[in-house]
């Protein structure tokens, strides 16, 4: 088997892909980790979501569109998007406190902001501000992908108009075999990238790499990640629809004493 030979060649401490084609956590090459989406209300945020990819967990709260706290930040013809990212000190294996001014954190926040700028219809809210607070609770690889997916869900639950979903997946290459949705263990060992796609138009709004990846391998892994984006889209859409259904149903309970069904059946002839 080609794979097993390559595994042996790369004599690292851990086996990224074993001879049976399994990864260190028992997944196959293209298998994604389990996704959990919790849309319950967090404090008085306009929209919030807790998203879990395997052991990576991110909490996002969205406030807005609302009056900008600083007048200098207002833009006269569209809303300003403000992203703040914080990583909990206990989130990774080694306890480490990062300050808010940490360059790496600011860079991630800027990446999230530029990912969402093209999809949010900011021109509908001139002079307003949309605040996105991202909190990383647990880190086990792919934390940028979790941040982006959670932000998509939180923005939707806040009723902010968006052109499309944004679904992000990380991918890497172990010698010649591509892997999807990397854990921290794999992320430290193989060259990797994160891709964020809009599932409807298949446009890509973010590709980021912190390691070096051979140019011949790039196309393959990039295509795979775009495909995986569609799978994640399905999960996210199901979660949003389930949440909306629940809320519409409970709104119906209080309504029935008034004038019965007030919403007409919608049909297009």
């Amino acid at each position: 088997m080609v794979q097993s030979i390559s595994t042996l060649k790369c004599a690292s401490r851990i086996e990224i892909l074993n001879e049976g084609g399994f990864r260190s956590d028992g997944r196959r090459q293209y298998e994604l980790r389990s996704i959990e989406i919790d849309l319950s209300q967090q404090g008085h945020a306009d929209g919030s979501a807790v998203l879990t990819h395997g052991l990576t967990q991110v909490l996002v709260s969205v406030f807005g569109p609302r009056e900008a706290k600083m007048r200098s930040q207002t833009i006269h013809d569209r809303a300003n998007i403000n992203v703040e990212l914080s990583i909990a000190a206990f989130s990774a294996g080694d306890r480490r406190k990062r300050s808010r001014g940490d360059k790496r954190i600011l860079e991630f926040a800027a990446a999230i902001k530029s990912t969402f700028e093209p999809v949010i219809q900011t021109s509908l809210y001139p002079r307003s501000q949309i605040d996105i607070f991202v909190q990383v609770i647990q880190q086990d690889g792919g934390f940028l992908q979790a941040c982006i997916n959670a932000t998509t869900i939180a923005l939707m639950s806040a009723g902010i108009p968006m052109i499309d979903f944004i679904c992000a997946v990380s991918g890497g290459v172990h010698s010649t075999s591509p892997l999807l949705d990397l854990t921290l263990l794999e992320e430290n060992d193989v060259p990797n990238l994160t891709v964020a796609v809009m599932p409807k138009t298949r446009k890509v709004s973010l590709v980021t790499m912190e390691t070096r990846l051979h140019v011949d391998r790039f196309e393959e892994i990039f295509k795979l990640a775009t495909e995986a984006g569609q799978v994640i889209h399905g999960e996210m859409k199901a979660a949003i629809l389930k949440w909306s259904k629940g809320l519409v149903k409970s709104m119906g309970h209080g309504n029935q004493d008034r004038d019965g069904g007030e919403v007409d059946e919608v049909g297009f002839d």
Partner: protein
Amino acid sequence: MDIDDYEDFDSSGSRLTCPGESLTSSQAYMRGHGTYVDSEEVIASVAGTIERVNKLVTVRAIRSRYNPEVGDLVVGRITEVQPRRWKVDAHSRQDAVLMLSSVNLPGGVQRRKLESDELQMRGFFEEGDLLVAEVQAFFSDGAMSLHTRSLKYGKLRNGQLVAVPPILVRRLKSHFLTLPCGVDLILGLNGYIWVSKHVKASEQEGEEGFDAEAVYSNVNDEIDEATRTAISRVTHVIRVLTSHFIPLTDTLLLEAYEWTVEQETNVRDLFQQDFGDALVASITVGR
């Protein structure tokens, strides 16, 4: 995906969608709020229910900030005092504006605003003050302008504010409610609800005796123990109902209030999850 074969009706007959879902063709239909047009297709841009009026297709978001309309009653909080105007936080996408010329000034009947009024604007409303007002008009950028030119409107005191999602406050005949337990309610359409001690109509300041001291007063009246308990009970009932996403109506609130009194429990028991669930179960049953 065409809308005709998109089967996702829930029990109430409303259809749900989410951003990026194509709804119909833009040649046959007009796009409304919550949609956009791309390559001759009407596509949803928010997650919510699809509504259609003739040829107009709109998607109404499940939860969103307050979208003001002229004539709406709102409860707001002063955030800033500017020359000739106040800025008011009304849970909307921008702070609302309350012009000095659209408030009732002391001295009775309508009169021109003087420079001296401008200098003592903080005497009327200060940062942090709560007020009830009506949406008067919009500015070109979509910000709303408020007015308090009625004796029903003005500064709020003797009570407590609850913020709820604006969609849970429906348009009612009157947004000023009086519950039999001696509590007044102001249901702001922006989702801010003011719960206060009941003031008899006769004790409210009349047009002739328009008294600046009383209308713009910052001092609470004497509130007895029973009223305080009633106020906090009503606020808790509102919080429990809205956390279960149940729209507020006067009958529903009263029913819920009576149920909590019947249970003979402490007000703080309402904080408990199971007690709240029982409350919701009791009022939704048989509906």
